[in-house]
């Protein structure tokens, strides 16, 4: 399963070289993609050529890091048509003057990614429309992921200095708009999200999501843990609403490819089954909370989806021993085999799958075929496919906009290549399409689980290896770099790891699908009504733990 063989062949690389031409300063290949070092003031031209001429239309992630002698921004580019076709653009800047050209004019998604890079690492981006801190408060001193940051120095901000983001009264006698803080404490923000909203009557004139309330330094915590044991518990806490195994797989995939670990096929099948169970649980929650947003707080749908999600949770609990923070994957496999008695577990899972179609039909009866629901959701929160691509939107949100992009198929891992299923896409581009996409994906996941169960049931007893032999201490080669993504419940969850030769990562970067998806919210809601904003937020299905990390 090693993906090292997937490194593009020389011909493709030469084609790329001809696109970028003499703007290439050097090569800095990563494990997953060829990397080209370019000048900080040629970022826009290089990226735009790669986008327009070579078709790399998906800026998956921007990683920033500091070396002893320089800062570095890495733009991880992919194609929406072919996710396995990747290229990295590496932009070094000096330590003294860390200014690099912003990619924002080429890819809108770079806006937030570069703000995060500025916030945490300290690289400045010229030509950036709005270079402010994004995760930390405006008053924060220093950049926590830079070398010269003193973690022991207390952040003392006097009350007078402390900017209360809610304090401004935004009173403007000239305008006839009203400023409204939606959140950070609001029943429909799905966590602590603050949306600065400017209203013209009940119409939304302008919104700006303000994130970071749930920032828990996940990247830094991962950088302080050992590859072998200490990182795996963290992914459960990113997208914490039952998508744990999907997140764990993101890290597992990255480190397994980096350290060249072969995962036993049996473990891959268990992983695939567990991950799809998580996806079902996550999508059920998404449907239930979306119904809350559209119906009001007393809706039956929410409890119905929770009732059915509970069955999935029980199965996952049997498998992993935990309900939420599974910590079930291991580097090179999974923690243990299916629970004994095996037949009982398989039957439990089968029972759930047997009942699922009736339940989905019930949801369709109650939710999607309801005329008022349709009136609320069709043609609201419209996200055109081109806009979605520009914002790096992935997952069911992108597929609801007709962007046919699913890493399980396009950049296969685990056992997905060997099972029969379809990628669900819808052309509605609206809230309704996103809901339907999720509901259909539940059915597709059920197909995958069914096939995995068949395989597991008949797997010869003496070939049930759940873990590969992995050394007690993992030390990937110094300066090996990799960016690997999996299809999590919300979209492309990517992990970038740079090894510094020790048993802990030199840089650990998380590409969160919710982070990119949330960025598209203003595009979806401006000019619509407040209820549409709430519905759009619900249909994006964000988890703030993953947005803020």
């Amino acid at each position: 399963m090693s993906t090292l063989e997937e490194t593009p062949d020389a011909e493709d690389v030469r084609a790329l070289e001809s696109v970028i031409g003499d703007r290439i300063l050097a090569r800095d290949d990563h494990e997953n993609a060829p990397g080209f070092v370019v000048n900080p003031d040629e970022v826009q031209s290089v990226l735009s050529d790669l986008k327009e001429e070579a078709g790399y239309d998906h800026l998956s992630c921007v990683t920033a890091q500091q070396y002893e002698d320089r800062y570095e921004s890495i733009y991880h580019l992919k194609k929406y048509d072919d996710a396995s076709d990747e290229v990295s653009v590496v932009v070094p800047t000096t330590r003294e003057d860390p200014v690099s050209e912003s990619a924002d004019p080429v890819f809108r998604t770079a806006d937030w990614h570069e703000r995060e890079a500025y916030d945490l690492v300290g690289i400045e981006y010229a030509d950036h429309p709005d270079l402010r801190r994004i995760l930390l408060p405006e008053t924060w001193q220093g950049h926590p992921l830079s070398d010269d940051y003193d973690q022991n120095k207390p952040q003392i901000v006097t009350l007078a200095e402390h900017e209360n983001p809610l304090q401004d009264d935004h009173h403007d006698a000239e305008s006839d708009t009203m400023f409204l803080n939606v959140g950070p404490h609001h029943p429909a923000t799905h966590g602590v999200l603050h949306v600065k909203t400017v209203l013209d009557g009940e119409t939304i004139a302008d919104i700006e999501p303000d994130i970071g309330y749930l920032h828990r330094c996940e990247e830094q915590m991962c950088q302080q843990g050992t590859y072998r044991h200490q990182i795996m518990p963290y992914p459960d806490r990113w997208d914490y609403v039952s998508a744990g195994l999907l997140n764990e797989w993101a890290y597992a995939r990255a480190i397994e490819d980096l350290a060249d670990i072969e995962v036993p096929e049996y473990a891959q099948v268990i992983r695939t089954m567990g991950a799809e169970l998580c996806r079902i649980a996550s999508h059920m929650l998404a449907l239930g909370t979306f119904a809350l947003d559209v119906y009001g707080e007393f809706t039956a749908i929410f409890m119905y989806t929770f009732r059915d999600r509970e069955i999935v949770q029980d199965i996952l609990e049997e498998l992993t021993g935990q309900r939420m923070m599974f910590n079930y994957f291991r580097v090179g496999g999974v923690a243990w085999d299916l629970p004994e008695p095996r037949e009982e577990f398989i039957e439990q899972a089968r029972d759930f799958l047997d009942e699922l179609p009736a339940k989905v039909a019930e949801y369709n009866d109650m939710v999607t075929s309801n005329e008022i629901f349709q009136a609320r959701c069709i043609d609201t929160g419209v996200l055109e496919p081109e806009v979605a691509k520009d914002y790096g939107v992935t997952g069911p949100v992108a597929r609801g906009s007709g962007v046919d992009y699913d890493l399980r198929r396009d950049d296969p891992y685990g056992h997905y290549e060997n099972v029969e299923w379809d990628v669900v896409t819808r052309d509605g581009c609206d809230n309704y399409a996103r809901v339907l996409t999720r509901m259909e994906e539940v059915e597709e996941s059920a197909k995958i689980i069914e096939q995995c169960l068949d395989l597991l049931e008949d797997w010869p007893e003496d070939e049930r290896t759940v873990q590969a032999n992995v050394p007690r201490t993992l030390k990937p080669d110094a300066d090996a770099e990799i960016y690997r993504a999996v299809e999590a419940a919300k979209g492309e969850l990517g992990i970038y790891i740079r090894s510094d030769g020790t048993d802990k990562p030199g840089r650990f970067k998380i590409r969160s699908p919710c982070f990119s998806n949330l960025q598209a919210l203003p595009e979806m809601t401006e000019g619509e009504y407040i209820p549409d904003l709430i519905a759009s937020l619900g249909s994006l299905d964000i988890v703030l733990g993953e947005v803020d990390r």
Partner: protein
Amino acid sequence: MTGTTIPLQNDTVLLPELVDDLLGLSEFGVAGEFLAAFIAAFIVGNLMLAMTGVAGPWAKRKITATFTDRIAVNHLGPGGILIIVADAVRLLSKENIIPENADRPAYDLAPIVVAGSALLGFAVIPMGSGVHLADPEVGLVYVFAVAGIASIGLVMAGYASGNKYSLLGGLRAVAQNVAYEIPLVVTGMSVVLFAGSLQMSEIVAVQNETTLFTIPGLEWAIPAWFALVNPFAFVLFLIANFAEVGRNPFDMPEAPAELVAGYQTEYSSVYFVLIYLGEFLHIFLGGAIIATIFLGGPAGPVLPEIVWFIIKIWAVFFLTQWLRSAVPRVRIDQLIEIGWKGLLVLSFANLFLTAAIVGVIA
């Protein structure tokens, strides 16, 4: 049931007069009459508040729980019924937080206006078994008028809280009430055309005196309740009523999830209880109006009239809770559109048709 069950209007003894007679207050002249009226009003008011007390903390939870596959309160007393006591203590012992920017006394008056206006409405409702406070000739107009006062309370609450969510909720409440009160009243008028009177007791009497048809073989005379005579008007009135009391699919003014809690966001403790009471009283008043003008008032077989009346208004309450669990809320612009472009037109069509039919028959 027979078509001869004719309540009240034959023996036009109203509750105050009854109290008067029982206690022998008439010898005290006007003061005695006033006292009798006060005692009667006390009885009716408490009946309604008791029903709200059962509905708010307990029945609503149980009903919603049944729809949403849960159990709800079950620890205190049989079926958790004593949660009513616990909730009362809890809510009343909480600190009454009044926001700095609140515009007093409007802020303090709003809960009283909301709860009070609904209570006033019950004055003219014939509840059967002699429970009927007053029977003015303009009863129906009166009940619409006092029920409409609640909108002022909502606006006061929304505006005086000094909170933008409250303000939006208050504005929505006005827009909604203006849009839906007209169809409500116009549909109510079609009933008046049938009954030929605005007097509540007369409306009830007309419904029960006339026999719509008799089920052959069983000798059951089905009375000409207006819900059966004109189901179209009944449905229109029900819909407009849901908007009027602000319940799904029209729970715009509160819209939890959108406007936090709308006009009541900033209210706590006793004020919150009052607003909450007011909301439930409004649902019951809506139910009482529907029961009176469409469902034959308190008439019904076997059981005492007052029991039938309570069953009828609880049926309407049950329906609101059902909708709340099952129907999405419409958007504010859709709500206004349904009101002005749909219900208003339909209610006028209904009125003209009724007028024509009544004219032909007459």
